[in-house]
Each structure stands twice: as C-alpha cells, then as structure tokens.
C-alpha cells in the first residue's frame, strides 16, 4: 500500500457530495447524474449496479478522474479533484487509480510486458524499477511466461489479467473496474473474480461496476443507481 492509503486507513478514500453531471449536446441537456452522495472507506469492495443508462459509467468516469463533474464536491484520497486541470487529473489517474475495462483496452501492437509497463513510463519510474515491477505483476496474475506475447496472442481471460496487472502497476489507492467480466466466458470471469477477491483481501479498495450478480455478491457493499441517483446502498 502507498503511504497515502496507509495514512487514510479507516478514513474515506472517496467522498462525493451533491455530484451532478450534465451533458450538453447543444440542443438538449442530459442530466446523467442528479446529485450523488457517496463515501467509500479504504479497503471496501463496492459493486455499483443498475440498468443501462442509469449513470453507472458516468459515475465511474468521475471517480476515476477521466471526467469532471458539472457540480458538487469530490475528494479522492483527501484531494479535491473537481476543479483540477487536465495535467493534474492525468497525474491523479496515474498514481491513485487503476482502471480495468470491459474490453480490456490493451494496445494490440505491443507486448503484454510493454502494456503493463506503460503507466510506469508515464509515472517517470526508472527503467530498472519498471522491469522489476512488471515482472512481479505478471507473475502475480499468473502470466509470468506470457510477457513477450502480444494481446492478440492471448485469450480473453489472459488479456483481462494483463489489464489487471497494468491497473496495479503504480500501486494505486483504488482499483476501478467497468464490467470486468462482461466480455469473458464464465470460467475466465471466475478467474478474474478470484483475482479481485484476492486483491481486496490484501486490503485494496475496489469499485466495480457490473451486471454480473455473482461478481456483485463478492463485494461487501452494493450500491444501486437508477436514473442518476443512488437508490439503495447495502453492506453485506
């Protein structure tokens, strides 16, 4: 765990108050989020569920600092990010957040090693440390023997494991996943779920958007969104 997350242990890692997001398409305005209040503690495993178009992905983009809210207050690891500039947001994404996407979003032309190495490059990590870190992560997701393979030479499950390794590269405070099992068969999906459960047990904060009831059950907290608002929030 990084120093920040240790310092914040038992504190809120995500604190959102009155978050609104309006998409202005010119002719019409679409209010995707209509006032979200959400607090996530360090070490929680949150599943965000809800029908398509409910605002789940918008929420995920805001949590991951890929986008900024129209209104409201958002603190990530004690840092207010709502009004940050593009370069600052890039740094936050690089250091605090690890993304796992439904369609993996690996770059197809470079090896899985180079894919995992990318966040370390953007973070300015030295070559020696990069290599050490990538090897360690590839071993951890069980692909130590696939480092030179390009994503196209891997199965869907393997690709998603490379993506998880990449998400962990900079040792982020939070792992953010958007339908991580959505494009996988049930067996590969199960592997990813196991991996997520492991990460959580090791004390990492996880926020997962999913339709997958099995994955949602693994989480200790389920947040349901409807029409841009949180309707239920249950801890198991």
């Amino acid at each position: 765990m990084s120093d920040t997350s240790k310092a914040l242990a038992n504190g809120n890692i995500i604190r959102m108050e009155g978050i609104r997001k309006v998409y202005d398409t010119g002719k019409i305005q679409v209010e995707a989020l209509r006032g979200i209040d959400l607090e996530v503690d360090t070490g929680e495993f949150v599943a965000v569920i809800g029908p398509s178009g409910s605002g789940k992905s918008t929420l995920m983009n805001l949590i991951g600092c890929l986008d900024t809210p129209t209104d409201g207050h958002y603190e990530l690891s004690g840092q207010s990010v709502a009004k940050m500039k593009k370069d600052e947001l890039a740094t936050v994404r690089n250091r605090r957040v690890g993304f796992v996407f439904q369609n993996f979003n690996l770059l197809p032309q470079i090896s899985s090693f180079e894919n995992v190495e990318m966040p370390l490059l953007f973070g300015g990590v030295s070559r020696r440390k990069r290599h050490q870190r990538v090897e360690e992560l590839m071993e951890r997701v069980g692909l130590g023997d696939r480092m030179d393979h390009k994503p196209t030479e891997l199965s869907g499950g393997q690709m998603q494991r490379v993506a998880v390794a990449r998400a962990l590269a900079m040792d982020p405070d939070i792992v953010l996943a958007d339908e991580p099992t959505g494009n996988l068969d049930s067996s590969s999906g199960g592997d990813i779920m196991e991996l997520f459960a492991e990460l959580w047990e090791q004390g990492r904060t996880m926020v997962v958007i999913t339709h997958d009831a099995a994955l949602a059950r693994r989480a200790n907290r389920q947040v349901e969104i409807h029409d841009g608002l949180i309707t239920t929030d249950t801890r198991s």
Partner: protein
Amino acid sequence: MIHPGSFVKQLVRDLRAQKLRTFLTTLGIVWGTVAVSLLLSFGQAFHTQMIKNIAGLGNAIVIAWPSVTSLPFEGLSKGRRIRLREDDIELVRKRATSLEAISSEYTDTLQLKHGKRTMAVDVSGVSPIFGEMRNMIPVMGGRFLNPLDEAKQRRVAFLGDELAETLFGSSDPVGQTFRLHGSPFTVVGVLKPKEQDSSYSSRDKDKLIIPGSTFRALTGEKYINLFIFTAQDVQRTEEVTDEVLAIIAGKYRFDPTDREALMIWDTTEMFQFMDAFMMAFKMFLGIVGSLTLVVGGIGVSNIMSVVVEERTPEVGVKMALGAKPRGILGQFLMETLIFTAVGGFIGLLITAGICALFPSLGLEEYVGIPTVDVQVAALTASLLGLIGLVAGFFPARAAANLDPVVAMKMT
C-alpha cells in the same frame, strides 16, 4: 517521459501500416527539400560567379578619363581639352585623403615583332600597383611589374594569357624576348586566366602591359589616357571620387560638377547593383522553393491527422493510464519532425548528388559551381523544422485535446 525505444517502434509501425501514403508524403518533403536547396545552391553559385566575372575588371575600382569640358567656368569657355600628366596623378595621390591606390594608364596600339611574326598589339603603360587593382594575377613562375621596373624604365612586359599563347605557343614565355616599337623587351609574367565580363578598352587577355615610365620613353607620350583609383573604404568611394574631381578641377580650372571634363565610371555601383539584384533573385528562388516545401508540409499534416484519427482509442487509453496532454502532443510532434527530418535528409542528399554531377555539364562560366554549403543546408533545415512543427502541431494538438472517455470508445 516517452520511452524512446517504444517510440521508434511506434513510428515504424505507423509508417508501415500506411506504406503508400508514407511514400507519397515523404516524396512531398523530399521534393520540397530538393527544390529549396537546389534553388538556393544555384542562386549562391550564380552570385559567386557573377562577382568573379565582375572582379575580372578590378577590385571596386573607379575609372576616370580626362576629356573635354562641357560647361563654361570662371570666364573660360566650354569645349576645352583636359589633358593630364603623371605629375597630376602624383598630386591626387598626395592630396586625396581617403585614397587607397591610384595608377595612370597610357594606351596605344604598337607594332610587335617576334621571330618572323609582326603584329599590332594594344599596349598599356601602368604603375606597379595596377596589377593588384585590376586583379591581374601572374601565372606561377612569373610576376607583375614592380617599382624597380618603373623607376629604371626597364623594358619588361606582362602579357595577357591569349597574347602569350599566340606569341609563344606552349613554350614558357617568361624570360623570352620580342621587339616592341623597335626596342627589345623581356617577358616577366603572364596573366593567370580570369573571368572578365566587362572592360573599358580591350580585354586583359589580349593586352601587353609595360611600366608607365618605359611607355613614355618608348613613345614620347606625355599625357595619360586614363587613370584608375580605389577608396580605402569601398562604402566611401563616392566621396573619394568627389575629392579627386575637386583636385583635378582646381588645377585645370573646370567646374567640378562637369561630368564630361573628367568622365567617371564607378564600378562599385555595379557591385552594389549586383548585390541588390542577387538578393532579390535569391529571395525569389527561396520563396518558390519554400512554397513547394509548404505543399509537402501540408501532405505531412494530412497524414498525421489520419494517424491521430486511427490512434484515437490508443490515445484515450494512454490518457486513462496517466499520460499528460503535453506528452501526447510531444509524441505526435516528434513523429512529424522525424518524418520531415528523414525526408529532408534524403532531399539534401539528392541535391548534393545533383551538385556533384553538375560540373560535368561544363556550364561553370555562366552559372558557377553550385554546392550544398553550410548556409544552404542550415537554411533548408530550419525551414524544414519550421514546416514540420507547424504541420505536426495541429494534428498533435487535436490528439492532446481528446476527451479520454470518448477516445477510448472509438474502437
């Protein structure tokens, strides 16, 4: 920030994926570079050659011919003949303050005898400084006239290269003798062939030059035909000319503004005109070449726009992983610059090749020898750099301004 190795890999990959477009675009840059550098090289060579040709006449000299007054002055009527002697030249040499050098020139056509051959040649009697002023450089093994020749009225001669050829063929003329106006003369030097595109009497290669003192003794001539002089500072040639005019006019009592009493040909004006003309000419060539290069730049800008479009999802992913907009901008800009640099390098090589082959065409006398010198290369390179930056900037900025959320979905 960007991994150099993966960066080169990325570039090669992009270019390979777009072989035809890459080829055509590089061709645009290569062509533009060839156009710019070739035009600049030829412009430069042409300029150098023009200067060389003019310099055949002399180093920024002013030529003055005493003639006939055209204005009445201090009660004297117009139409008086002004005739100058050697002591007038001495007077000017002593009085004119910013004068660098001055030499009188006596001319006549005299009979020359060598062996069985008899011919009429144009002979000039001059001061030893004349050789330097008129860029008369002797071929190795000979010399121009010297002050002792002048002081002792030696019967020595300096020959134009064609005259020497006519008289002595392939044998070395230096040390050989001939008779001029009935007196024996010894050859001390032969003119090293030079380009000369203008003259005020016959061309130097046909001339026979002897000391002024010898000329006077040989022919009994008292009056000079003309004199030439130079200013210490070329920029002040006009002032010096006015000063010389004032000195002569004062002594011979004619109006110093009388343009005919002492006719003047200031060859430095020709240099100044040539400089201005060549500057305009080179600018014209440069602009034509640059425009061609700009067209090439537009091609590069186009291909980079396509590359950015194709790599939009990748840019989105990189941004999600923490790549800064600045880094993305730098990456595409760098790619464009490498693109232009490679095209430019090939272009310069082609130009250098053309320049290397050019002398075999034998057009040197007219257009000189074009070379890709440092100036041409530097100018072309900076132009290429500028065009690369501009061509790359807009696509690169478009990439840097992408919204990562939208970009990632563009698969």
